[in-house]
């Protein structure tokens, strides 16, 4: 349970990033499959080189932002299709990771990790912790961090700049007609999103104690599943609910996975099951809820139009 919770919060950063591109900007950014392990690789390399873990995790995130910029520039300046731009960047990232790490993986168990460092900074020595204490401690750290990021995003998306990002996803022609260069908003969003994803990868590497070039496989589908769980339970009630919902979605998804592992369910099937669930979640509502949805919007329409009843 606690492992699921911890993982859910770590992957929550990624879910927020994926929400930003896929859902808010309407940009299916596949870069994240590469950005996630890139964040881990850069962090691991930095730690091995003697950088302190907090700085290392931030460097991991910044590497992700650069990857996002690469996809963004390819798409906006070179007119490469959005999905292809993400695939090209991801492919390039694998080379960058292997060159950075010098090999496919780096173990970090011998180094003080991010969480130990934070415990130390608040005057605690994690060596004396029981396993449960340690787990709860890391969850608290993550909870504070993810809450701060969530609040920051909520605030940012309400600023003049944030509004342009949301409207670029909603009606690009309209916001351009109001004087916004949508190439810039896309680039900025991709950088923020990939920062969050790489940051998520960096924290995953710190919590697992290693970085591996293969650790990005399937993380995108899992993040999409988390976003969907979040939307299902908490979405459609405003942006701020959605941000919180996506984090909770990630926690729910990872907790379910952890339970599955506890129950000795075959772990090799999880990715297929996730993919099928996402597919079902995508297809089913379109078939079923359509009739309901129109009813709801009709209701709003009727109750909302005091002025022109005769229309």
């Amino acid at each position, binding site marked *: 349970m606690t492992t699921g919770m911890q993982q859910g919060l770590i992957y929550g950063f990624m879910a927020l990033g994926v929400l930003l591109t896929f859902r808010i900007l309407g940009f299916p950014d596949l870069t994240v499959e590469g950005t996630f392990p890139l964040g881990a690789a850069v962090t691991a390399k930095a730690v091995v080189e003697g950088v302190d873990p907090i700085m290392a995790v931030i460097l991991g995130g910044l590497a992700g932002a650069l990857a996002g910029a690469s996809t963004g520039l390819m798409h906006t300046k070179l007119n490469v299709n959005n999905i292809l731009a993400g695939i090209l960047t991801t492919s390039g990232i694998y080379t960058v990771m292997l060159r950075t790490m010098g090999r496919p993986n780096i173990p970090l168990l011998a180094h003080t990790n991010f969480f130990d460092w934070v415990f130390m900074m608040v005057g605690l020595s994690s060596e004396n912790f029981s396993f449960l204490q340690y787990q709860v401690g890391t969850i608290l750290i993550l909870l504070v961090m993810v809450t701060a990021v969530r609040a920051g995003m909520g605030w940012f998306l309400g600023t*003049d*700049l944030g*509004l342009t990002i949301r409207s670029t996803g909603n009606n690009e*022609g309209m916001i351009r*007609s*109001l*004087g916004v260069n*949508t190439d810039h908003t896309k680039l900025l969003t991709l950088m923020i999103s990939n920062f969050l994803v790489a940051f998520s990868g960096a924290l995953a590497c710190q919590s697992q104690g290693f970085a591996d070039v293969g650790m990005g496989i399937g993380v995108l589908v899992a993040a999409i599943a988390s976003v969907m769980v979040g939307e299902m339970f908490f979405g459609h009630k405003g942006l701020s609910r959605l941000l919180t919902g996506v984090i909770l979605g990630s926690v729910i998804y990872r907790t379910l996975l952890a339970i599955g592992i506890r129950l000795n369910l075959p772990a090799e099937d999880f990715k297929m099951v996730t993919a099928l669930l996402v597919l079902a979640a995508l297809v089913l509502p379109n078939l079923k809820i359509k009739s309901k949805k129109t009813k709801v919007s009709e209701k709003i329409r009727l109750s*909302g139009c005091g002025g022109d009843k005769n*229309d």
Partner: protein
Amino acid sequence: MIKLKHVYKIFFPNTANEVLALNDMNIEINPGDFVTIIGSNGAGKSTFLKVISGIETVDEGTIEVAGQNVTGDPEYKRAKYIGRIDQDPMASTASEMTIEENLAMAYMRGKRRGLHQGINAERKQMFQEALADTGLGLEKRLQVPVRTLSGGQRQALALVMATIAEPKLLLLDEHTAALDPKAAKQVMDMTHKIVAVKKLTALMITHNMEQAIQFGNRLIMMHRGRIILDIGQEEKARLTVSQLIEQFTAASGTAFADRVLLS
């Protein structure tokens, strides 16, 4: 205010489907003019407005807006001076965002957008006042997503959005065509009022000949990418719909065959 010199716009050049959408367009429009534009389908009316706003680039010729040569400027740069509304009520507003968020974005037209909150008490007050002028009660519904508004309400909001940041120029491409008659009249009356109060230069495409005669101080008719009629204020005041059709037939050499409303 606007000056087009020898403007050409060709779609699918050097192919069998080549379309000469603008064929040596020349026009000068003075500050404060309210020009109505009519013409048969495919005459190039929308393209004319699109090359002014920068949605389409020109193949030849120059465009000046407010004394500046904007021919090579992208749309987002010209947007500083130009407010526009499309025929499609979905096009000019962001449906998933609230009324106040839409207005906040419109209010920042041509200004630097930074990390200030888009909505604050002062702006809310201003938005409410601007919406109250429309007389549709929208000022009480600032936090409602725009998708829940009727087409007429959306176009009314679009009109407020297009003009709240005091542009120099207002471009209207059949902005009441998709509305039912009652909503169309409301939006048209509102347009008339805002253009007069804010002393805007405005260009309005319409398929309604009566509307074209009734509003504005100048009427132009387009055909095959050119202006074939240009009628000033005095002549326009005496003009009737049937005279206008006669003049069209004489000037274009074809009968007026399209979806023009002769109401």
